């Protein structure tokens, strides 16, 4: 069907709005240009990935909740405290995909981690300690209240998932590389 806003291109996104209070539901079908206009989130992701990746992400259902949150439905956003250092609200981050200051990474906790996982396939950097910022207390857990993430275990999990994919797609060169990396990481980390 055609986009309900411009009536020219084919619709590829479906936005569902649930009215706060009355819970009335209305749906609008949009093409990727109009969807980008209505959702800065989608506009941003379109900038960074092609339309094909965007559509495959959507099909996997990963973006459905984010797309809904930027169409004026603030009631659907999780209740997250603004950053204690710069005051940026979580909605402001969501609308632009830009954080306000270095401390936002800690402030927004698990909700930001979900985005990071989707963008990067992991939610932590390497095992080796990065350069410490002057005068900052070094914490082993970046997110208060949660245990420190076992970086190696997470990477192993991601690599095993990718290996499965490669075998299914007959990308044996990549599969061989992953198999070697997994072997290396497993022996370093000890028995799991």
């Amino acid at each position, binding site marked *: 069907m055609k986009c309900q806003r411009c009536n020219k291109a084919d619709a590829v996104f479906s936005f569902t709005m649930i009215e706060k209070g009355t819970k009335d539901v209305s749906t609008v079908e949009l093409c990727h240009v109009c969807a980008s206009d209505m959702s800065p989130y989608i506009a941003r992701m379109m900038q960074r990935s092609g339309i094909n990746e965007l559509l495959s992400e959507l099909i996997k259902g990963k973006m459905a909740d984010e797309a809904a949150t930027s169409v004026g439905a603030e009631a659907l956003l999780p209740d997250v405290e603004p950053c204690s250092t710069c005051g940026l609200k979580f909605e402001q981050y969501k609308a632009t995909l830009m954080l306000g200051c*270095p401390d936002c990474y800690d402030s927004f906790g698990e909700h930001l981690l979900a985005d990071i996982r989707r963008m990067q396939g992991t939610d932590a*950097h390497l095992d080796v300690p990065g350069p410490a910022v002057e005068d900052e207390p070094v914490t082993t857990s970046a997110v208060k209240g949660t245990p420190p993430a076992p970086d190696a275990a997470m990477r192993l999990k991601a690599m095993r998932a990718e290996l499965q994919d490669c075998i299914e797609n007959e990308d044996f060169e990549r599969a061989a590389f992953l198999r070697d990396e997994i072997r290396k990481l497993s022996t370093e980390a000890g028995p799991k």
Partner: protein
Amino acid sequence: MSAEQEGSGQLGPSAAGWLEGTAPLAHVALSSRARLARNIAKCPFVPHAQAEALDITLDKVLKAADRSPALVNFERVSLDNMSIDQRAYLKELRLISQELERGGHARAVLLSSDRKVSIMVNEEDHLRMQCIEPGLQLEKAVARLEAIEAELAAVLPFASSRRFGHLTACPTNVGTGLRASVMLHLPAITITREMENIMAGLTRRGISVRGFQGENSEFLGDFYQISNEVTLGRTVETIMRDLLGIIRNLVEREEETRHKLAKEKGPIVEDAVWRSYALLTYARRIASKEAMMLLSRLRFGIERGFFPALSHETLNRLFIEIQPAHLARTTPPGRGEDPSARDEARALFLRGQLANAQRQ
């Protein structure tokens, strides 16, 4: 920026440093680029920062550059002091991004004298450091960039954490802050449509593919910018190794397909090359999209020895030099704005460059 901190903004006769010199694999690779994103510790990120905060970060960067032997002689250019044409010129050369080209408060760029390194200040992050080398020389670009980053890190505290590595305004860059990319010219595997299939596989492996001007949908001139998407949870070495493996694969496939096309479809390819050459050397008006396509065909002609006076490197330069701001530098002033005047200027330029391509 104070008057003594600014450069003349003239950029000299040419800013095209990276287009010169030997370019390894010039027949398939136009350029290799490495970019590192860094932010200054305890300072607000650019996108939501107030003007005063941006003045502070710019000042910190300039003072750090003063104390850094590698950077003290870089030319400093404030975006506000550049004309639209000058900004577009730098963007066409990939020395600044489209984002920085727009200008804005406290935005500047520091350029190395050989014009291969550019350090953008207050783009999306406080620092976007970039090194471009011609052809396939990604390791060289990364090495130079890391050396500069190390010098700056000694005089400027970067925002980072143990968990996330280097902290960036957008989480898509967090961790290494590295975007490594190579601009490949792949006319053969575009024609045979192999590239369509390859692209889907690349996205699954965390590699992004963009067009000549960073676009998602069109691939003008059969150019593909191949870069890493993932910046977190990997070292710079791993990112580079993976990317180069894929690049080498693509180069091989392109070379094989060029041979195959020459062998199995020789006459058809030859005809396409000469038709392109004819248009390029006789047209009086040519838009950039068509020019890119025609120039792309010439690649096969160079490989077949039709154009002894035209090298792969020269062809690569032409793709850059037909862009609007480049043409404006040679077009008489006042005519540059009118698109049809630009198309005429482009045709004139190409006739001049290609007329003698067949001479020994």
